[in-house]
């Protein structure tokens, strides 16, 4: 017996927090303009005590006005997608569930584009459209994935994959016919890309939405542990299944919608990160949710740093990096877990 204790939870999250900090420093350092780590740490200290003016202008522009916001966005997106993935895996009792694989990301992308077409100029339109798209998609996948009243895991995944490609086709169609045919930007957005910064007002909406979504899911994490053994079993152990499912479906859709409206459909993060966390730290959701949020943030920050630097000065979409870096790691972890 090795029950989770608060101490182990805090130590693990603290350790992962430090790792995240290290990867942020690394991401700030690397890029077309190299910066030394010592300078960076000193400068971060200067910013922390409110003496940012002392820094050279050009350097501050590159490192703190260009790289830092992009890194912060990566943290938000990575945390949101990983927690959403872990949640879908519990709700659908399917280890392969993930917002991207289930088509929820594409649904959110389609929703935000439709919303932009219908009501352009309204600030909140993209995340709201994305949220509606995400909820509609997960509801659709859930009902398509049922056979004789039971969730069938193969049907469910097929339904998600097919909806995803259907939505992507509509997105391509809408974008080529309606806008200025920016094929490169479009492809990047479909693959997931962090290069477009979020406007100042929206940043707060993102942060509040992320904290609320992860918080709501975390409050049900003990219930999710039992839900994994089946809905009937969970009910007999005292879980209010209907309430938990509603809270988690809505929150996970919200997280996916926020991530997609900021950065497009970045794939496999929600599949990979919770799996890796599960293999290292075990499958207790009380630890899995915060650890996935932190590891998701680390994964996206590092993946985006790679995307910025491997073919420098050209940049790759981060979604391409997650797909390329993710698959081999996934196979390795899966094989190790099977032994």
């Amino acid at each position, binding site marked *: 017996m090795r*029950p989770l204790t608060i101490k182990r939870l805090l130590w693990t999250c603290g350790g992962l927090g430090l790792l995240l900090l290290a990867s942020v420093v690394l991401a700030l350092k690397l890029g077309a303009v190299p910066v030394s780590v010592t300078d960076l740490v000193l400068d971060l200290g200067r910013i922390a005590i409110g003496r940012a003016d002392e820094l050279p202008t050009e350097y501050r522009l590159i490192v703190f006005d260009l790289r830092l916001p992009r890194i912060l966005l990566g943290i938000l997106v990575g945390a949101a997608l990983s927690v959403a993935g872990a949640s879908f895996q519990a709700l659908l009792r399917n280890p392969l569930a993930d917002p991207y694989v289930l088509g929820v990301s594409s649904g959110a992308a389609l929703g935000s584009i439709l919303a932009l077409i219908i009501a352009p100029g309204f600030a909140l339109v993209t995340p709201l459209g994305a949220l509606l798209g995400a909820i509609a998609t997960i509801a659709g996948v859930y009902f398509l994935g049922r056979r004789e009243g039971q969730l069938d895991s193969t049907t469910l995944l097929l339904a998600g994959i097919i909806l995803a490609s259907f939505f992507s086709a509509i997105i391509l169609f809408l974008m080529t016919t309606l806008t200025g045919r920016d094929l490169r930007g479009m492809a990047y957005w479909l693959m997931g890309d962090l290069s477009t910064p979020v406007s100042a007002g929206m940043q707060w909406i993102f942060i509040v939405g992320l904290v609320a979504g992860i918080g709501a899911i975390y409050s049900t*994490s003990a219930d999710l542990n039992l839900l994994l053994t089946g809905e009937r079993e969970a009910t007999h152990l*005292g879980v209010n299944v209907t309430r938990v499912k509603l809270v988690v479906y809505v929150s996970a859709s919200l997280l996916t919608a926020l991530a997609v409206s900021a950065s497009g459909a970045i794939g496999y993060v929600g599949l990979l990160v919770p799996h890796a966390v599960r293999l290292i730290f075990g499958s207790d959701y009380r630890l899995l949710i915060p650890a996935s949020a932190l590891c998701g943030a680390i994964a996206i920050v590092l993946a985006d740093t790679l995307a910025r630097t491997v073919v420098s000065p050209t940049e790759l979409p981060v979604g391409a990096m997650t797909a390329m870096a993710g698959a081999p790691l996934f196979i390795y972890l899966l094989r190790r877990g099977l032994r």
Partner: protein
Amino acid sequence: MSAPETFARTAGGREDHPNREQAVRLNVEQASYAYSASVQSVPTFTLGATSFQAREREIVAILGPNASGKSTLLRLITGTIAPLSGRVELDGEETSRLDVRTRAQRIAVVHQESPIVYPALAGDFVLQGRFPYGRALRFANPEDIEVARNALAQVGAEHLSKRTIGELSGGEKQRVILARALAQQPRLILLDEPTLHLDIGAQVELLERLRQLAQENRYTVVVVTHELGLAAEFADQVVLLQLGRCLRVGPPAAVYQKELLEQVFDAPLDVELGPAGRPRVNLRARRGEDIT
């Protein structure tokens, strides 16, 4: 503190009951249910009025062939569905009106198979039984761990606590699932076809253990099964169902009548009375003569 004491302690003054041998724990009174596709349509399955009562330390077997209404009756008792007419009460409270948490503190259900998506240690799995007693994030406190340990000890599975569920044999897994039910410290334990995937040795061991646990911890035990022989040997009462009708309720000796059982189970059977006053059922092979 010994294991049985830990279990009796939380019973909430049950031991002080003046008349405890007489008190009815589970009261199923003219309970009925009907499944239908929609409100207007004809029910696809109906369970007719069923009545029986069970006291603490008693084992009740719900017996019947497939599609006789056993699972429906089980769901009525657990309170996950409310009866259309009649009532199902546990210590005077209707089970379907209890909130999920309270219900889980009083009723534990053991299903024939728990699907396990991610591997968990058997010990942590048993700790899940403490869920209805916890707050918010339900971190296990020392008492929970003590209760879970005792539960494992009571089913003779302490040595399994550090193994993952996936590594266990059918019989070991069944014991761990039973231990999780014990960790709920329930008053009523319901088992749905618990012997289905067990070999005969493990079946007898499980039922022996249930009888002993019912005595020590004052559980009322309800077992849904179609194992005629095991029910005759271990049940204090038998509820015999056929096609959604409750045919007989009573001790095995009264319910086990050759013609009745042959008709209900549609098989040629021999029933004889064993030395302990319990009936014995033997299957008589047709040898080709009366197959139609």
